[in-house]
């Protein structure tokens, strides 16, 4: 009997970087563990290609053909929707990143675990921080798609000041001069942005170049270790919400970051931590149960989350999404010249998402 | 002779250039009317307006008494008005037979038939072969039109026009690019066609024109400079100076 784990993230094409972080994190954990769960381990890495239909097929391939008991993945929420069904039929799905609200709420599933966070939590971190620091009005923007809408709605649900303007930009927008002009005209007390990937890089650079840095820019998934290599000085001092950062003062985390940087020669972002923790979680569950056939026992063991997370204290809510701390992190240039986020403040402690009540399982 | 085609004060400009400058002309049923004139006089443009490819800027085209000025090409073809192109326009990727068969098909029942094999329609194929026979291309039926030599393409051009079963045939330099035997064959064909249908013929081959035409109109700078019998036109000194040259 072997433990079989599939890693299914998008690792090709333009948006591959997040998937690579998650994959590398998970593989590092497996390497450190040697035998995951104390068992003969086989890890199958597949590429979701960023296409839901391809991913759905690959997921079924993993489960039906290769007989994996666990799948770590995916990164993107449209892929999540496509693979959740096929995987959870007979295996456990552990998400190192994506957590659209439906999967935390009405579509929660006994075999689905959001190891990282629920998408809407991040914006609330920044909203709460603004409340705490007395920001009276904010300008908020996000790309025009589901996750973008969720992000801004999440922000608004917590923010107590006034939202002076709520903007949706087309996905993949390159030039933000128009938005920057509006920000400059309105002079809000702060700006909240959710602009993942290249969009974030463009926005942050242009924000800096337009000389707007006097207005605090707080972001989610916009300034992190995947984008900082390009943003560099433009992002310095910008604040973002995180559930983990390489600077986190937890022994497991310090070890992880050191090992990761040695092995891969880049700074891990929270996706890497998600991948790493997912593998560690599997390890703990399989060790506890001692086999990979007893699904119910494995589920209970996963729910117990009895592993040393790089995030320190960690547990699951009843909807299988984490209860954890959330922090405010600042972009800094480390002594070795690399850029990373650094935690400056704990915003929420043991924070669970808002969808627990909608989850019936 | 009943008039089959009547053109009244037709006008067409390209920018400042009046290419058709008030042309009025009538062609009787069964007549072979040749239009000659210098290069760029507007002959092809006139044909384009008669066939519906170009919309005139002014004037009228009457066909069998009906005003067809605003009908499109397809509608005119259905009324029996067919043309050949001076600059060869064929279906290069289809066989010679298919080129002609498509013309036959256009005049025989609906083409909104989605199931039956068109290549197997014997009646259509037979008519197409007959048209090829007339122009002398029968032995090239299975060849792709693009693989024909230039002269052969000119012959095919005529076969396609014939296959639409026209009542009025507008021929734009059908002899261009054919020589010797082929030219003679086509002249003989037109001679035969003359008795069956009405023809407007544009040609720079004066031997053919004088041999075939019942009447000739000379187009110069978009206007009719002279119309008359071949003899009269040949003798017209203005025509000789503008077009024919001395040795014609």
């Amino acid at each position: 009997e072997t433990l079989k784990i599939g890693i299914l993230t998008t690792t090709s094409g333009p948006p591959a970087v997040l998937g690579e972080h998650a994959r590398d994190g998970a593989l590092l954990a497996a390497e450190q563990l040697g035998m995951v769960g104390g068992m003969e381990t086989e890890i199958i890495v597949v590429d979701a290609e960023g296409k839901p239909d391809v991913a759905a097929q690959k997921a079924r391939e993993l489960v039906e053909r290769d007989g994996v008991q666990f799948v770590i993945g995916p990164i993107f929420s449209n892929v999540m929707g496509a693979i959740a069904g096929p995987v959870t039929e007979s295996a456990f799905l552990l998400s190192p990143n994506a957590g659209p609200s439906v999967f935390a709420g009405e579509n929660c599933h006994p075999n689905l675990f959001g190891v990282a966070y629920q998408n809407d939590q991040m914006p609330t971190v920044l909203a709460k921080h603004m409340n705490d620091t007395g920001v009276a009005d904010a300008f908020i923007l996000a790309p025009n798609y589901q996750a973008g809408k969720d992000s801004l709605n999440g922000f608004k649900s917590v923010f107590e000041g006034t939202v002076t303007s709520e903007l949706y930009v087309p996905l993949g927008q390159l030039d933000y001069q128009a938005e920057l002009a509006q920000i400059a005209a309105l002079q809000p007390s702060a700006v909240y942005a959710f602009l993942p990937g290249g969009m974030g890089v463009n926005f942050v650079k242009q924000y800096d170049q337009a000389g707007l840095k006097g207005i605090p820019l707080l972001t989610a998934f916009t300034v992190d270790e995947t984008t900082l290599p390009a943003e560099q000085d433009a992002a310095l001092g910008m604040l973002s919400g995180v559930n983990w950062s390489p600077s986190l003062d937890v022994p497991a985390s310090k070890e992880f970051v050191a090992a990761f940087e040695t092995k891969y020669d880049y700074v891990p972002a929270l996706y890497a931590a998600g991948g790493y923790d997912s593998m560690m979680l599997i390890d703990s569950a399989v060790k506890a149960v001692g086999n990979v056939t007893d699904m119910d026992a494995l589920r209970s063991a996963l729910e117990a989350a009895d592993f040393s997370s790089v995030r320190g204290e960690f547990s699951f809510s009843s909807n299988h999404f984490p209860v954890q701390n959330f922090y405010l992190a600042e972009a800094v240039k480390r002594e070795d010249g690399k850029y990373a986020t650094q935690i400056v403040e704990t915003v929420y402690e043991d924070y669970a998402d808002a969808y627990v009540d909608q989850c019936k399982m | 002779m009943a008039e089959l085609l009547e053109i009244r004060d037709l006008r067409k400009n390209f920018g400042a250039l009046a290419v058709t400058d008030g042309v009025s002309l009538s062609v009787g049923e069964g007549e072979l009317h040749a239009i000659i004139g210098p290069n760029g006089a507007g002959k092809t443009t006139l044909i384009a307006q008669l066939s519906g490819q170009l919309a005139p800027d002014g004037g009228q085209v009457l066909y069998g008494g009906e005003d067809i000025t605003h009908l499109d090409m397809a509608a005119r073809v259905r009324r029996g008005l067919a043309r050949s192109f001076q600059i060869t326009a064929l279906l290069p990727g289809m066989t010679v037979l298919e080129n002609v068969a498509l013309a036959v098909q256009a005049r025989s029942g609906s083409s909104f038939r989605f199931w039956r094999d068109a290549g197997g329609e014997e009646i259509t194929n037979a008519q197409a072969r007959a048209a090829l026979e007339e122009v002398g291309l029968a032995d090239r039926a299975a060849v792709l039109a693009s693989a024909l030599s230039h002269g052969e393409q000119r012959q095919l051009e005529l076969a396609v026009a014939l296959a639409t079963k026209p009542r009025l045939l507008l021929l734009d330099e059908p002899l261009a690019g054919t020589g010797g035997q082929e030219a003679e064959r086509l002249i003989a064909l037109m001679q035969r066609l003359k008795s069956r249908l009405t023809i407007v013929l544009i040609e720079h081959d004066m031997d053919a024109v004088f041999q075939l035409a019942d009447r000739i109109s000379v187009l110069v700078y978009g206007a009719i400079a002279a119309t008359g019998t071949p003899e009269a036109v040949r003798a017209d000194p203005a025509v000789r100076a503008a077009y024919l040259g001395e040795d014609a």
Partner: protein
Amino acid sequence: MFNLFLLQLLNGAQFGILLFLVAAGLTLVFGIMDFINLAHGVLYMVGAYLMATFAGMTGNYWLGLMLALPATLIFGLVLEFLVFRRLYDRSHLDQVLATFGLILMLSEGVRILWGSAPLNVEMPELLSGSVPLAGPLKYPVYRIAVIAAGLASAVGLWALINHTRAGMLLRAGASNRPMVAALGVDISRLFMLVFAGGAMLAGFAGAIVAPILSVDPGMGESILILTFVVIVIGGVGSIRGAFLAAILVGVVDTVGRTFGPIWLRMVMDPSAAAQTGRMLAPMLVYLLMAAVLFYSPTGLFGRRGAK
């Protein structure tokens, strides 16, 4: 409000010029040489990556640019030699297939060489300040340089295509290559040079925008369609058209995005307006293109009867 509108018009125009800068190489290869080069986007990307590498290596923007340009030129020559010269006489669809294959290969190659994470290109000291503009907004000097580069390539291309013999030969070659050769012109060499020049222009655009846009493996793809849209709206083969179309696209996109919701609110209730606005915003460019082609099926300045 009106001031903001004017400002956004300007922003739209400058975005348009940036678009033209990226599309410039493509107007040469697609517009003039009539070659559908889907790999234009990756050439642009390669330019940016080379810039990032050389600028990083030398620690100097200008040195980086001086190295990146010849490097993209050589890259273009190599591509032309290996692939493109065999495709000039082939159908548009063959060109689509081959250049699609190149996109896959080159973007994967870029990922292997440089990794997936976006890279940074430092702005040169000389161009890094900003000038004050309406109210509190400052306008980055670098953007003025980008606009200048865009205008320069527009004028340069226009002169090259419409007023030089090489331009004539290119246009002639696009419609009938064998004939040009039979008249004594080494059209293959001309095409090679111009293709490489187009690649270099793409690379130039990539290098120029690198300090303001993200240098990442997706940068080519995200802009590819826009560059084609620009050329097609302008009318294939017209530099003037491409330039105007770029500005039009920039303005419609920018102004529509920022003022669309406001205008919609005048005719419908706010929540419906927000919903419709959000749906329409990403469609604007496509609506514009469909509308232009509806009224003028060969683009703004396209030749009637042209392909």
